[in-house]
């Protein structure tokens, strides 16, 4: 019989995740006594910073929340404000926002697969070490990541904290020559993205099935990016303005990020949840590539998230190319808007999962209140539940170092963006 030892593992700084977090695990008498994903990155108060600002400043301000997924923040924000102002920016803007969002998925997913996740599968500590044995794959990853950045730069002026998006559309439309060049890059990337799907599926992924609820957007036949209803595999089907009736954020003492629960329970957002709920919306070649991997859906193994990310890169390259093949320069890249006071709601699919925004706007166009629920705070309770099950199933008799490595891998499956999630602080002063 395995030795039942007491274990105390502290991973003070999680490696290869976006932002600063830690893992604490206490095992007593063969059972997990305490497990915490600690998020100690300072809270960032973005919602408070937005108060009093003009609605037109919101897209540029929220882009600053995250250097990896600024477009997602911009897309949820403009959708919320346009929803309030009852503006429909038209098919050109809708299509180009989708292209821009594809750029962000490509760069963020490529970064995660190659820089953060892949080294795990080859026993490497970093992408530099991985590049010694898998140079071609790392090179392919960098090429895809650069392509994603180029798409963002086309619409956003620059790839980090882009500034091209405005309420009502874009500040400028790309010139035809720029789009031509990008189309050639996208065509060249199609086979690379398809090969990436097969490569990730060929990795030695642990078997670890768990029960969980997947939540994602869904919209009449298109793979979800910029719009849709919120659905789950446990019968949720709501418009995004009903989010607050079904999802509640709660504070936990060990985290500066809130835990968001769906009807009081943890749930999953992100690539695997999207695929579980929207696999039928993938274009035929992407669907065929996924089917050829033999992975059964709905998939309950979080380690397959890396494959889901690769599938979404392939989808995003395909989708951006499809939309840019039909590109024409518009008369105007935006529509004028009329301020309306009230509450507006927006929800889009950030690379890491659904990103929900609410803005209460006053009659002068200033933001009275903002609420942002990022994907990492939605996944946080699920990550802790996963860790408990995964480490118990893996075997608590393993060496501390092995338990630590497995724990970090479980966390990385969610690609948590801790910097995005930390936007809350409850200050308690205890005096005696």
């Amino acid at each position, binding site marked *: 019989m395995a030795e039942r030892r007491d274990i105390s593992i502290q991973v003070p*700084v999680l*490696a*290869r995740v*976006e932002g600063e977090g830690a893992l604490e695990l206490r095992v007593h008498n063969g059972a997990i006594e305490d497990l915490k994903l600690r998020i100690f990155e300072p809270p960032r108060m973005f919602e408070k910073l937005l108060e009093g600002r003009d609605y037109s400043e919101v897209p540029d301000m929220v882009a600053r929340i995250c250097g990896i997924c600024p477009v997602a923040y911009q897309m949820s924000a403009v959708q919320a404000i346009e929803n309030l102002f009852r503006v429909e920016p038209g098919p050109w803007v809708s299509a180009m926002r989708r292209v821009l969002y594809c750029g962000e998925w490509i760069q963020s997913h490529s*970064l995660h697969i190659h820089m953060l996740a892949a080294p795990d599968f080859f026993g490497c500590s970093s992408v530099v070490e991985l590049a010694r044995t898998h140079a071609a794959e790392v090179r392919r990853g960098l090429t895809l*990541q650069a392509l994603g*950045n180029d798409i963002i730069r086309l619409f956003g002026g*620059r*790839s*980090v904290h882009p500034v091209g998006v405005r309420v009502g559309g874009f500040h400028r439309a790309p010139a035809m020559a720029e789009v031509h060049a990008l189309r050639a890059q996208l065509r060249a990337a199609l086979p690379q993205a398809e090969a990436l799907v097969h490569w990730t599926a060929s990795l030695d992924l642990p078997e670890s099935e768990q029960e969980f609820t997947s939540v994602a957007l869904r919209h009449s036949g298109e793979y979800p990016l910029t719009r849709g209803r919120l659905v789950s595999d446990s019968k949720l089907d709501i418009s995004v303005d009903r989010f607050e009736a079904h999802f509640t954020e709660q504070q936990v003492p060990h985290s500066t990020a809130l835990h968001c629960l769906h009807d009081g329970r943890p749930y999953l957002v992100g690539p695997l949840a999207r695929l579980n709920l929207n696999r039928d919306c993938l274009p035929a070649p992407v669907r065929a590539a996924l089917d050829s991997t033999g992975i059964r859906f709905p998939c309950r193994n979080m380690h397959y998230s890396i494959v889901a990310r690769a599938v979404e890169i392939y989808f995003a390259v395909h989708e951006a190319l499809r939309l840019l093949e039909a590109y024409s320069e518009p008369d105007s890249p935006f529509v004028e808007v009329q301020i309306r006071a009230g509450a507006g709601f927006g929800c889009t699919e950030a690379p890491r999962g659904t990103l929900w925004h609410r803005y209460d706007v006053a009659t002068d166009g200033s933001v009275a209140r903002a609420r942002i629920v990022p994907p990492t705070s939605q996944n946080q309770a699920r990550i802790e539940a996963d860790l408990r099950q995964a480490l118990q199933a893996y075997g608590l008799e393993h060496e501390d170092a092995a338990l630590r490595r497995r724990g970090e891998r479980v966390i990385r499956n969610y690609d948590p963006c801790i910097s995005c999630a930390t936007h809350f602080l409850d200050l308690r002063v205890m005096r005696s």
Partner: protein
Amino acid sequence: MRDRLRIIGVGSPFGDDRLGWVAVEMLQNSAALAAVGGGSISFAVLDRPGALLLAHWHDADRVIVVDAVRSGAPPGTRHRLEPGEWAATESVSSHGFGLASALELARVLGDLPSHLVLYGIEIDPTCSGFSLSEPVRRSLPDLIHEIEREVGFFAQSGVF
């Protein structure tokens, strides 16, 4: 066509981290560089590019990178480092994938430019806001002059 020389400023909008951007702007307006390099020099300013720094130098023969440096020296100290003098540091996230890691990745992938040099100034880590600290600001003209002199040597050796 390959660029003979690319000068890349790496940074962010914040405090002394702006150094790379400010330096490249000054070099773009440098009469000395225009006289020796003319159209053979290209410039780029990048906001924390991480591993994608490789994409910005892969089509250049010679590369000069200007970045903020923290080595423990007094703020304002100027540095000139060649690849062998850079220690690769362990990066804990892609947020922390800095110049040293990008260089190491380029070395492993065989994507190092034939000539790569880093110019930098030791920053004041407490400097915040959107302007440079006094020690960095004072040191900047000498840094620009050193880069102009190095580019002048390229010109004398027939690079352009």
